C-alpha cells in the first residue's frame, strides 16, 4: 500500500471504530440525559458538550498528561499490561471518542426527547418490557437521530487535527491520519499532493451531508438543522 492510501485507510479505520464505539456508549448516555431527573444531569450534559467549545489542543494536552506513563490513566493502563497509549493507534481511538462524544450524544439526545413518554406507557400496557419498548418504539422513532449521530461522528473524526497531533503525533501507518498528512504536505510545499487529499476530503464531506439530508429529509440532529 502506498503511504497515501495507508493514511486514508488508517483514517477510515479510526473513524469507523470511533463511530461504532460511540454509538454503543452514547446511546445509553443520551437516553439517561433525555429521561433522568437526576441532579447530575446538567453537569454531565455540560461535560459532554465541552469538546464543542474547547480548543482541540487543550483537550489533547490534558489527555496527553493523563495518558502519559506517570499520568493517572497511564499508570492504570500500564498496570493492566496495556502499556501507554500516547503515540499509538489505540490512544487515537480513546482521544477521538472523547473529542467526538457531543456529535453522537447531542443528536441522539434531541431525538430521544421528542419521543412522547405516552407512547412508552402505551407500549407498557401492551405488555412490552422496558428493553422491548426501547427496541420497538424508541429505536425506530429515533432512527433519523441515529443516522445524524453516526454520520456526524464519522465525518468529525475524519476531520480532527489538533487532538491527533497532540496525542498521536505523526507516525506513518500508526497515527498518521489524513488531516496531519495534508498539514505535512503544505509545510513541505507539496501543493499537488495537498490538493488531492484536501479536495478529496472536501468532496467527501459534501457528499456525506447531501446524503444525510436526502435520507433524513429533514435533519433533526442537534448540530445542524
Amino acid at each position, binding site marked *: 500500500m502506498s503511504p497515501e492510501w495507508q493514511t486514508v485507510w488508517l483514517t477510515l479505520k479510526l473513524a469507523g471504530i470511533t463511530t461504532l464505539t460511540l454509538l454503543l456508549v452514547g446511546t445509553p448516555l443520551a437516553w439517561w440525559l433525555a429521561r433522568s431527573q437526576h441532579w447530575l444531569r446538567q453537569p454531565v450534559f455540560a461535560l459532554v458538550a465541552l469538546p464543542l467549545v474547547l480548543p482541540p489542543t487543550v483537550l489533547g494536552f490534558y489527555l496527553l498528561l493523563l495518558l502519559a506513563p506517570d499520568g493517572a490513566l497511564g499508570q492504570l493502563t500500564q498496570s493492566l499490561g496495556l502499556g501507554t497509549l500516547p503515540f499509538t493507534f489505540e490512544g487515537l481511538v480513546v482521544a477521538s471518542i472523547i473529542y467526538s462524544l457531543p456529535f453522537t450524544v447531542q443528536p441522539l439526545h434531541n431525538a430521544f426527547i421528542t419521543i412522547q413518554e405516552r407512547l412508552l406507557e402505551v407500549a407498557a400496557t401492551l*405488555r412490552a418490557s*422496558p428493553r*422491548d419498548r426501547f427496541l420497538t418504539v424508541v429505536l425506530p422513532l429515533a432512527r433519523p437521530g441515529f443516522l445524524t449521530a453516526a454520520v456526524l461522528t464519522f465525518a468529525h473524526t475524519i476531520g480532527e487535527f489538533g487532538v491527533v497531533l497532540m496525542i498521536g503525533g505523526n507516525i506513518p501507518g500508526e497515527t498518521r491520519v489524513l488531516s496531519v498528512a495534508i498539514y505535512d504536505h503544505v509545510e513541505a510545499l507539496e501543493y499537488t499532493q495537498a490538493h488531492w487529499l484536501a479536495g478529496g476530503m472536501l468532496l467527501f464531506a459534501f457528499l456525506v451531508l447531501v446524503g444525510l439530508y436526502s435520507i433524513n429529509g429533514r435533519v433533526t440532529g442537534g448540530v445542524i438543522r
Partner: protein
Amino acid sequence: MTGTGIVARFRCDFDNFRLDVALTLPAQGVIALFGHSGCGKTTLLRCMAGLQPAEGHMEVNGHRWQDAHQSLPVHRRPLAYVFQEPSLFPHLSVRGNLNYGWRRVPRDQRRIGFDQAVAWLGLAGLLERMPAQLSGGERQRVAIARALLTSPQLLLMDEPLSALDRQSKQDILPYLENLHRTLAIPVIYVSHSTAEVARLADHVVMMDNGRVVAEGPLQETLARTDQPFALEEDAGVIVNATIRQHDAHWHLCRAEFQGGSLWVRDEPGLAVDRPVRLQVLARDISLALAPNHDQSIQNLIPARVTGIAADQVPGTSLVRLAAGGTPFLARLTSRAAHQLQLTEGKDVWMQIKTVAIVD
C-alpha cells in the same frame, strides 16, 4: 387466588393533593369513575395500571397485582388501557399497531381474535393505513381495538372520547356500547360527562379531591341528594324502561318503567319491547300537589317525596322522589318547596318537561 371483584386501595401524596381511596367493585360491566377535572380520577386509574407508582393494593378476580410487598410492573398486569389521546405508534401501520399487543400475548391466553376486534370496531378498510392518514375518531377506534387485542382481564379507559369532536363521539359511542354488551371484561371508565356516564355505566364511583364521595349502582347513586359536590345543571336520574306502545299520529312512544310510564319522542329503532335508558334531569321536573291537565307538559307521574336536601346553589333544594320503585330527583327553589309544604312521605305529581333517550 379466590374471590371475585376488583379491590383497589391507594393512598398517596402528590404535590397538590392526596389520593386516598379504598374501593371494592364488581368485576363486570362498566364502572364509571366520575368527577370534575382535577378530582384524581385519572391518577387513580394510573395507579391501578401501575403507571403511577403509589403505595396500595390492587386485586382483580383474586389475582393480586400489587400489595405492600410487591408490585407487578405495568407490562406484567393483564390489563388494557385506552388513553385520552389515541397515541398510536406513528411508525407502524394500523395493522402494526393492532399486532403490537396481540403478538405479545401468549397464544393460549388470547380470547379475542384479530379479525373479531377489527370487525367490532369497523377497521377492515383501514388496516394498511398509517396513523397520520386517519381521522381522530378512526385513530381512537384503532387504539381501542389495539387495547382489546391483549385479551385483558380489566379494561381501563381514560376519557377516551374527550379529545374528539362531537361527530366522532357520536360515531364511537355505539361501538363502546356494543363492546359492553359483547365482552365479559370489566371496564373502568373515567369521565366527567354525565351524558357518557348515563349512557354507558352500570356502576358509578364519584370522586372529589382525591377521595370517593359516593359509589354504587348507577340509578341509586345518581338519585342521591347528598352528593357532596354539585352535578350542577346535570343532576338527574337514569330510568330503565321498556318501549310498550307507539303513537304514530303524534310521533310519540310510551316507555314503561317500574312505577309508571313516560311518553318520549319516537325515533327510528325504538321497537316495542326494546329496553331503553332514559335520562331525566332534576331541573326538568316540577312538582304539583294535584294533577294539572291544563298545561303543555305531557308526562304527569304520581310520586312520593322521600327526601329533601339543600342544593349547592343557594335558594334551591333537591327533592328526592319515588314513583313505584324508581327514584327521581327534582330541583325546586327553596321557597317553592316551602309553599308546597313538602315533607318526607308527601304524595305529589311530577311534571316532567323533557325525557332524553340515552341508550
